[in-house]
């Protein structure tokens, strides 16, 4: 494969659009409208009572969805930054889509917060601006930490994906005409690929990666503190921050496997996304599943060892209560099934990897649902105990959030080059030298 082929393939993936794409976009967009926005408007009209969230269960599936999507967002930018700094060449073909996952997951997550709020038109109250109500945000609250952390992460992720795409926008600019040319001319900012520009990009990109890694870790730690800093049994645990961070990277990595499979199959990127990528991601999933399992065991042990009746009751409810089947489903999908990744044959079999990645994310959503759904309903006073059951509106919005993510991603693949051209070229033989290796993926 030559350099020109890379440009050819990636530009084609942007400008040539078949009926399958339009069908997929219309379906995803339709489901988003029907399952996400209509129920949301219904809830706005009739009030938050349209959801299943009632006292004492004032947090529900929306927040579980929020944690899930924030978690999924940890796939891209964090993993991309770590692999950039560790100089892993296999990152190069997949990181752009992974970073896009981050961006869109964050968008969906913040939208779910707006849905959860019930009256989202007051969302600006979280921002510190002078007002006549003398109402300023309480910066001691983890909820405000969240606003700051997620705002920063969204800014950082957007900047990171955009900056890495500038050279590719320039390459697409040169190959397009009409409105596309105008758009890519604006997006590429007049990039020419001079030695000065490459040098500056390298350093800016490295600094951003260094800044974003601790940021990403802080984001999910802070999300965990929304729960752990309360005194609710089963939530008030010091293990929560690492538990959430590991869970986030775990579900994010599984999300990458799903997206890689879809891109490889439907965008014809077989030459760029190879079995080596699935092999490496499989190893990563295995390691993460073991850490996740360990932390889950520690969470149970800490609750049991505390010796307090409220913690014991919370544990009992989680393991053997109304939602016990969901707990054991989570263990099966997130702790047992990923052990298959021990086998190389499994890691390099694409369909089984796809099924595993979806199963892990079902398990991870369940985990978040259990954290939110089984805690507030079993607090200190048994007379206030309840069973939380999500309403149809809630379930529909959660389903719609996946369609919203898919819609955003489908729009992305037609605007951004979903594989980084210049970085894939870097893994290939430089023109004028003897061929030494396969273009991509062989040097993991």
């Amino acid at each position, binding site marked *: 494969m030559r350099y*020109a082929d890379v440009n050819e393939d990636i530009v084609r993936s942007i400008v040539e659009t078949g009926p399958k794409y339009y069908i997929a976009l219309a379906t995803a967009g339709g489901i988003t409208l029907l399952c996400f926005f209509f129920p949301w408007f219904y809830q706005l009209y009739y009030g938050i009572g349209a959801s299943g969230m009632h006292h004492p269960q004032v947090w529900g599936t929306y927040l579980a969805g929020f944690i899930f999507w924030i978690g999924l967002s940890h796939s891209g930018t964090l993993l991309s930054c770590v692999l950039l700094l560790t100089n892993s060449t296999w990152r190069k073909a997949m990181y752009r889509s992974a970073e896009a996952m981050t961006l869109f997951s964050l968008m969906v997550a913040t939208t779910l917060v707006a849905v959860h709020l019930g009256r989202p038109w007051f969302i600006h109250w979280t921002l510190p601006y002078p007002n006549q109500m003398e109402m300023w945000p309480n910066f001691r609250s983890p909820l*405000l930490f969240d606003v700051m952390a997620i705002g920063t992460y969204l800014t950082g992720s957007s900047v990171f994906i955009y900056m890495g795409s500038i050279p590719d926008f320039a*390459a697409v600019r040169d190959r397009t005409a009409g409105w596309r040319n105008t758009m890519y001319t604006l997006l590429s*900012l007049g990039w*020419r690929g001079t030695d*000065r520009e490459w040098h500056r990009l390298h350093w800016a990109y490295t600094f951003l990666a260094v*800044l974003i890694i601790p940021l990403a870790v802080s984001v999910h730690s802070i999300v965990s503190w929304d729960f752990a800093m309360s005194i609710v049994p089963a939530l008030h645990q010091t293990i929560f921050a690492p538990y959430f961070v590991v869970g986030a990277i775990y579900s994010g990595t599984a999300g990458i496997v799903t997206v890689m499979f879809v891109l490889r199959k439907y965008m014809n990127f077989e030459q760029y996304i190879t079995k080596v990528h699935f092999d490496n991601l499989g190893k990563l999933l295995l390691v993460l599943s073991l850490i996740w399992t360990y932390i889950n065991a520690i969470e149970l042990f800490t609750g049991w060892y505390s010796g307090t009746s409220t913690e014991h009751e919370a544990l009992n409810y989680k393991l053997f209560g109304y939602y016990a089947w969901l707990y054991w489903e989570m263990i099966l999908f997130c702790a047992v099934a990923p052990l298959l990744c021990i086998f190389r044959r499994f890691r390099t079999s694409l369909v089984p990897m796809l099924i595993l990645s979806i199963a892990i994310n079902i398990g991870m959503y369940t985990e978040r649902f259990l954290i939110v759904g089984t805690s507030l309903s079993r607090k200190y006073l048994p007379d206030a105990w309840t069973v939380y059951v999500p309403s149809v509106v809630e379930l529909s919005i959660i389903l719609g959030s996946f369609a919203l993510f898919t819609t955003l991603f489908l729009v992305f693949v037609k605007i951004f080059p979903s594989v980084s051209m210049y970085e894939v070229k870097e893994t290939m033989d430089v023109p*004028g030298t003897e061929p030494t290796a396969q273009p991509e993926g062989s040097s993991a």
Partner: protein
Amino acid sequence: MTNFAVGLFHEPQSALAAAGSLKSAGFATLELMSPIPVEGVEEVLGEKKSVIKRFTFFGAVIGGLSGFLLAAGTAVLYLHPTGGRPIITFPPYLIITYELTILFGIVFTVLGFFISARLPALRDRVYLPETAVDKFAVSVACDDDKHFKRAEAILNEAGAEQVRKMAEEG
């Protein structure tokens, strides 16, 4: 109006050799355009220093100070005493400080990148679209025709596939 001699090369090594020869011959305004970052360019065209790290550092410092002042200032201006605890409480405010340190660090890094890479370009500059695909180009500013002929000879000698005369406004 400045004129440029632009040599187009198939291989990065030839382009680098041409840039080295032009530099030795006394040409000052040299640029190498390529589809990927070229290794060894600093050995030929001299070590590059960028101000980005200063932007990042001072951005982070400004962000940290702003974060703490925002949280502490809010607490002082809008008093909310709780349980006799201090009004300015360091542990939670350090988190706001931390987040804004990173936010400002990111924003200033981007600013530093734009300024030092001279982007966005506000006028047309010498550019060959082939360099975004698989070619490597060396562009050199020439004062007059004599200068151009010299540069052209050096570029051809280094193995340029073609040498073009291009002009840049300003």
